[in-house]
């Protein structure tokens, strides 16, 4: 013990300073924190949603819907291609996820095959997105390769995250956390946002905007009977689903050609949305409106018709308004959605957790009280049990607590309510290392060693056990981290940090303290040894 190496003292002092410095921001009031010099750490503990309140949303990107939409688009592409080349066809439709079409005139079959092969983009890995095959009886079969679909799904998820980020940022919610989970899932965590409805309304809407011509050859009776030409579709109106209109499937212009959208008021002082197209959009809209003066077009959002105005004159300026039955808030939200772009695939909420700020504050209070009481119980017991050596262990516990809070603040790991339980338990189990050492030292002293030798032996012999015992806890914590989610991960993280700091403080800090005490007091016998030292009986 006399040969207490200098590095041990230095490491202990440095660790204590580190612990104090990084814990400090958590206990200082906000005003004092602002006055800290810039070289001091400012980061506080990162409280989980269960402690500070907020919303957690788990979304799944609907890949099946993406596939379906992709195939529907392909049908339209096939129809257009064949028409443009004046190829007569029939029976265009989906059979078992594959697209089939029958070419009426055998003489045109080769031409049709050739033209359809131009559909879809070439893949970077070779081949094309769309595979075209001839089938018996003048049929042509088209399908999208699995690999292309997979790539598209990956792309869609990435794009969705980007769009969600833009939308949530525009809401002004406090630093939301958006991360991908697995291949098709997205987690959105918004601390402080206790009303998930607003968040959901903004994130979940596909916001696919299209301008489509109304098919005026279709009569209301046809719509009621569901009779429409193959290139038209019946869509409900936003204001009342019982009102329906038939519109052309092909979009004149779509939301991705918008460069600007904002909420405003029309001449009757009703909220509306002002928008502007990009060059391509302007050109296509001008063309379409010039050819169709006097006819109606429909403004369609997520397969619902918002409005279907008459074209009074060609619109060549590339800007316009969308009027509908909006409140100002709806108009604002919609403008936001249009600006940030449409989701490539529908999103579904598959898990949602919301905690109100008040409940979070209650949880923090409960956590503080129980940490205090738990800590006090540990202190009292260890001092009662080991006297002076108990004080040393208690001092190590204080440094341990500081270090855990410091590391949690530094790494900005999330502290959750179960995490607080993990903290208390860690402190309790940290004592175990000291108990192991002290008991060893007593054994050694009983077998007649000098006080110095028994303490030294206590430390060195207990070390193996301490490492073994803590490694098992670490394994359990790592598994929790791997398989757990949310609060459980917070618990595992607190536990893992605690295991490292515990071994460090219970071994090193107490060692330095005991060595100092030893030099100062020069004790003759171990204070934790029973009054009447008893030689261990040999058996």
């Amino acid at each position, binding site marked *: 013990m006399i040969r207490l190496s200098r590095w041990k003292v230095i490491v202990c002092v440095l660790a204590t300073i580190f612990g104090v410095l990084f814990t400090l921001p958590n206990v200082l009031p906000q005003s004092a924190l602002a006055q800290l010099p810039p070289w001091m750490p400012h980061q506080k503990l990162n409280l989980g949603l269960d402690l500070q309140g907020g919303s957690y949303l788990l979304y799944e990107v609907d890949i099946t819907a993406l596939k379906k939409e992709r195939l529907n688009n392909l049908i339209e592409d096939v129809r257009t291609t064949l028409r443009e080349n004046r190829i007569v066809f029939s029976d265009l439709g989906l059979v078992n996820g594959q697209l089939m079409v029958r070419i009426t005139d055998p003489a045109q079959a080769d031409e049709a095959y050739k033209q359809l092969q131009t559909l879809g983009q070439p893949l970077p890995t070779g081949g094309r997105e769309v595979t075209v095959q001839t089938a018996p009886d003048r049929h042509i079969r088209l399908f999208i390769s699995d690999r292309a679909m997979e790539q598209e799904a990956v792309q869609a998820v990435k794009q969705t995250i980007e769009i969600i980020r833009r939308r949530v940022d525009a809401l002004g919610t406090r630093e939301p956390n958006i991360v991908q989970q697995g291949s098709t899932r997205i987690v959105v965590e918004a601390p402080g946002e206790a009303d998930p409805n607003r968040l*959901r309304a903004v994130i979940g809407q596909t916001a696919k905007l299209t301008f489509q011509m109304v098919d005026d050859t279709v009569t209301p009776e046809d719509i009621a009977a569901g009779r429409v030409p193959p290139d038209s579709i019946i869509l409900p109106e936003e204001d009342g689903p019982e009102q329906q209109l038939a519109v052309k499937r092909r979009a004149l212009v779509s939301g991705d050609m918008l460069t600007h959208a904002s909420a405003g008021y029309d001449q009757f002082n009703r909220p509306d949305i002002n928008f502007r197209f990009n060059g391509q959009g302007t050109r296509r809209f001008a063309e379409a409106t010039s050819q169709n003066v006097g006819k109606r077009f429909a403004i369609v959002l997520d397969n619902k018709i918002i409005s279907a105005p008459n074209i009074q004159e060609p619109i060549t300026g590339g800007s316009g308004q969308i009027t509908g039955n909006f409140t100002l808030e709806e108009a604002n939200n919609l403008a936001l959605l249009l600006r940030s772009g449409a989701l490539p695939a529908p999103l579904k909420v598959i898990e949602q957790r*919301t905690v109100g700020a*008040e409940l979070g504050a209650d949880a923090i209070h409960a956590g503080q009280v*129980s940490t205090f009481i*738990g800590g006090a119980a540990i202190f009292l017991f260890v001092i009662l049990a080991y006297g002076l050596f108990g004080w040393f262990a208690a001092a190590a516990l204080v440094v341990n607590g500081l270090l855990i809070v410091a590391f949690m603040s530094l790494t900005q790991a999330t502290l959750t309510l179960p995490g607080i339980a993990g903290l208390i338990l860690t402190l*309790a189990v940290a004592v*175990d290392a000291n108990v192991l050492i002290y008991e060893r030292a007593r054994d050694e002293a009983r077998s007649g060693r000098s006080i110095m030798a028994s303490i030294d032996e206590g430390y060195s012999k207990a070390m193996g056990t301490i490492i073994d015992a803590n490694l*098992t806890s670490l394994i359990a914590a790592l598994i929790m981290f791997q398989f757990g989610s949310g*609060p*459980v991960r917070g618990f595992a993280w607190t536990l893992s940090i605690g295991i490292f700091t515990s071994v460090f403080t219970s071994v090193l800090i107490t060692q330095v303290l005991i060595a100092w005490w030893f030099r100062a007091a020069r004790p003759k016998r171990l204070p934790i040894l029973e009054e009447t030292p008893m030689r261990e009986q040999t058996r």
Partner: protein
Amino acid sequence: MKWWPLIKILPVKTRFHFVRRSKLFAVLSVILVIASLIGCFVPGLNRGIDFKGGTVLELSTPQPVQLGKVRAAVNRLDLGDVGVQTFGTRDDPQGLRHVSVRFQTPTGADPTATVTRVEQALNQALGQVTYSRADVVGPKVSGELFRNGILALAIAIALMLLYIWFRFELQFGLGAVAALFHDVILTFGLIVALRIEFDLKLIAAILTVIGYSMNDTVVVFDRLRENMRKYKRMPLSELIDLSINETLTRTVITGVTALLALSGLALFGGEALRAFSIVLMFGIAIGTYSSIYIASPIVLLWGVKRGEDAEIITPHGARP
């Protein structure tokens, strides 16, 4: 002061015959394990929404809530089995104004839209309502969470076996794992017996129990291994008794510390942590018991190879 520090008045050297009594305790443990296993199926675990899917809403109103009104409002929506319960908080210990509502999302319905419908119905029935919590777990997610939870427990036990095998010997590993199964199954038994809601937090609690129980077992095993080298000819059963007795002071002090610390959590940690800390406390107690009466005696059952001395193991009372 004669009694302080306490350690001075603890018996210096205990001579309990743990191994001799382990048969009795083994019978007791087997009965409890079987009872717990049966309990896991009948009446079965009380799965929370984490593992069952569905929704929990927690709400409060300025005046005391009439539960009948809440029930009637939600029942009108035809959601099937609806659970309505009051719960206490810091500012309302009797739980007069705080209610939790649980329900399942009808198949095919949108879960979050269902929540909105329920909230509207409750707003209408109760007037001013504040929602403090809304948890919605879809059926796909709940299934995955349950599978992952059970998988985590299985992997934890398997890794512990490997670790002990690697650090000690296979026989020790088997003893440790038998003790772990014992602890985990009895903890499940407690969860069933107290009708505690089985959720993600409890998986974390059980994993912690696994970690602690192993911790305890390792300390005894460590001493056992050391004593095996020290007293080469002492019969294994006596060695085990000796090792447990030698580490008993530590076992008691560490166990009591952990239980004291957690009792603070159970008493003051609020509703959210009560079940969690009770399970932890039970697990720590049972983990301590199992390292003494399950893990070590099982090592004896299998026997351990002890090099050349293996053949010279002498009957009781042999001295080197």
